[in-house]
């Protein structure tokens, strides 16, 4: 497969995952604010910004407005970028995949205008999350599960791991209280919000019942091996995709394999107490490893220098 094609497939899927995550996060916070804003806005928004990956606080008079605009442009922009990547490899993806991305693009432009989004923000949230689920199903059921599909998997899961690790970090910095300190009602709602941002609330209840405890939430979102929006699950799938790519191309990279191994090992073998004692550091390690895996993937398969290829 051409390196450029692999690059397009990887980013098509990453951008779509990013759009889905941002949309869901936005939906949850808008929902929380509608009933009664339990937490003062000047504390909520920096946290939302941080979990959306903005390093600097956003400028503007009304933080609600600014955040909403930021999220909107990130959602619509990610969808446009996903479509642009798909458009360049149309002959490589199934026509069903193309049609779904193309449809979402036009739909997001229609309902993502500032006025419509302000009055009916949930339309966009629903359209994006549903379409992202469809996209996953369509790629799985209509594409050859060959190299191209593996790059789509790699893109989806590296993005998911990064987003969830960042979200948990921002949330725990604000709300984590160790031990048996009781949780008040407003905190309770925030923890439910975190789980909902990862579509995890119902699944959490099935595993632990509806009793919310921060340690259990951390364990579930970070370490659960069976829940598709946990960091561990994502890391496992990422490692599998990388292995399949290595086998398919017969280009083995020790470094890349070791990096993926370290990521899954950290999630499989680190005791929960150690993680919760410094969750920020743990999240940072996960994100750093993902960054290194991304760079490794590029060095081995996509943007390798021509001279280096002769040495292999």
């Amino acid at each position: 497969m051409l390196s450029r094609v692999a690059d397009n497939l990887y980013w098509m899927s990453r951008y779509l995952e990013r759009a889905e995550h941002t949309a869901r996060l936005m939906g949850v916070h808008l929902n929380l604010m509608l009933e009664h804003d339990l937490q003062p806005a000047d504390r909520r928004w920096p946290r939302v910004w941080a979990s959306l990956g903005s390093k600097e606080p956003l400028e503007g008079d009304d933080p609600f407005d600014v955040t909403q605009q930021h999220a909107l442009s990130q959602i619509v922009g990610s969808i446009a970028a996903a479509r642009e990547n798909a458009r360049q490899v149309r002959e490589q993806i199934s026509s069903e995949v193309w049609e779904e991305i193309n449809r979402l693009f036009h739909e997001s432009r229609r309902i993502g205008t500032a006025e419509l989004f302000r009055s009916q923000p949930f339309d966009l949230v629903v359209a994006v999350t549903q379409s992202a689920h469809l996209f996953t199903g369509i790629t799985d059921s209509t594409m050859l599960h060959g190299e191209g599909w593996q790059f789509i998997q790699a893109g989806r899961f590296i993005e998911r791991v990064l987003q969830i690790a960042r979200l948990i970090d921002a949330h725990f910095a604000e709300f984590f209280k160790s031990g048996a300190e009781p949780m008040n009602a407003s905190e309770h709602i925030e923890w439910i919000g975190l789980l909902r941002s990862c579509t995890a609330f119902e699944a959490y209840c099935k595993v632990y019942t509806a009793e919310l405890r921060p340690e259990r939430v951390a364990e579930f979102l970070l370490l659960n091996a069976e829940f598709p929006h946990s960091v561990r699950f994502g890391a496992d799938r990422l490692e599998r995709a990388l292995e399949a790519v290595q086998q398919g191309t017969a280009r083995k990279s020790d470094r890349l394999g070791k990096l993926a191994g370290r990521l899954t090992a950290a999630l499989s073998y680190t005791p929960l107490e150690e993680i919760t004692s410094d969750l920020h550091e743990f999240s940072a390690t996960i994100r750093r490893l993902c960054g290194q895996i991304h760079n490794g993937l590029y060095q081995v398969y996509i943007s390798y220098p021509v001279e280096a290829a002769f040495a292999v």
Partner: protein
Amino acid sequence: MPPAFDTSQLGHARFQNYWLDQAYDEMFESEAVPRPHYAALHELLLELPLAEMRHRKQAADISFLHQGITFTVYGREEGTERIFPHDLLPRIITSAEWEPIERGLTQRIVALNLFLRDIYGDERCLRDGVVPREIVYSCKHFRRQMRELTVPKNIYITVVGTDLIRLSDGSFVVLEDNLRVPSGVSYMLTSRQVMKRIFPELFRTAGIRPIDHYSEALLATLRAVAPDGRPDPNIVLLTPGVYNSAYFEHAFLARQMGIELVEGRDLAVHDNIVYMRTTAGLRRVDVIYRRVDDDYVDPLAFRSDSTLGVAGLFNAYRSGNVTLANALGTGVADDKALYAYVPKIIKYFLNEDPVLANVETFLCSDRLQREHVLERLDQYVVKAVGESGGYGMLMGPYSTAAEREEFRARIQADPRNYIAQPTLEFSRAPCFLDGHVEPRHVDLRPYILYGDKITIVPGGLTRVALKRGSLVVNSSQGGGSKDTWVLY
């Protein structure tokens, strides 16, 4: 406009907007009398209820839309994708009409290829005065870099699309050759697929020659021109990218042939060998079916501002390590001024008379011919020699005085850049427009492949000027296409 058909005689309103005049009509011999090979279609048009016709037209349109058969119009909003306009009714050519076309095109392509080999080699025809040196050297598509370079099997023009028109007397003549990167063949192939679903009853009885083997023949042709010593060549199609007007066609042909569709940034040259960058490492490339113009293939050899090409590609080509199809510099032979010399070129290289005639052409670079044209600008079609796609043209009889003055100034400033041809009444074929059948002007572009042998799939792309009265068939100027049937 001449009087329309007497519909009472026809017994049908379908043809109420149809008319005949001195232009050759593809369907009708005389009023309401169809030519024998159009009889079945004519009958069907009379029989089918209007609703059914509309239904079939809609089915065809939807099929094009869903397949994403589009082209991009430049100069409008950035990258405007449009569905290629398509007319429902086929253009039909008999076996007897096709035979001289096939023979004539083969002769013409062989001669033009010999000519290219000669001007980039011995220059015999220049020394013998068959073609004036200045016409060749002043052509903007002449590539001095190609001098003394041997191309595999001496084949310069691997893929050709030649535009033919039919005059009032029914004879086909050559309007122009496209020897650089001719496009449109994907519309020929996809429209046939659609038509089979729309008119199965006609296909069953008419005896239409198939064209589906085009992609296979193209692949075999490209394989034939691979560098020596590469028995299993890696063939790729080089596209300028998604914003190019013909990107659909590039992706379509690559998929049909099962070869990689590459962009310049996918290729790299190392030690004069071209590689493509794959996830499994670098893979050597042997033949490049390039859909990128000469100027852009290599920023080191040609335009340095090109980002579409591959640095070092020309040196790899010179070294014989990779084949470019078509070869570079072939545009000199489809220059509109050189066109006037093609009959002499055929006579010189093959010692044969041309089977297909040229359109009478006046060269503005020649003083007497220029004066003749400038005095009669309102009677001629003036064309810039290096342009294509219907751009840079003056349609004399339909022009305004201001446009004529503008062209007069342009011709006087740069006479070599212009030629003039008489306004031709080229043939019309029936089209299904808005519930009626009306005649529109058509041309014909057959595609010729030159590898181990010459292959011309029967038919080609019939382009139609869908606007009433228009003579311009280019898709960028409001033209459309028709499926073309050559009968057994």
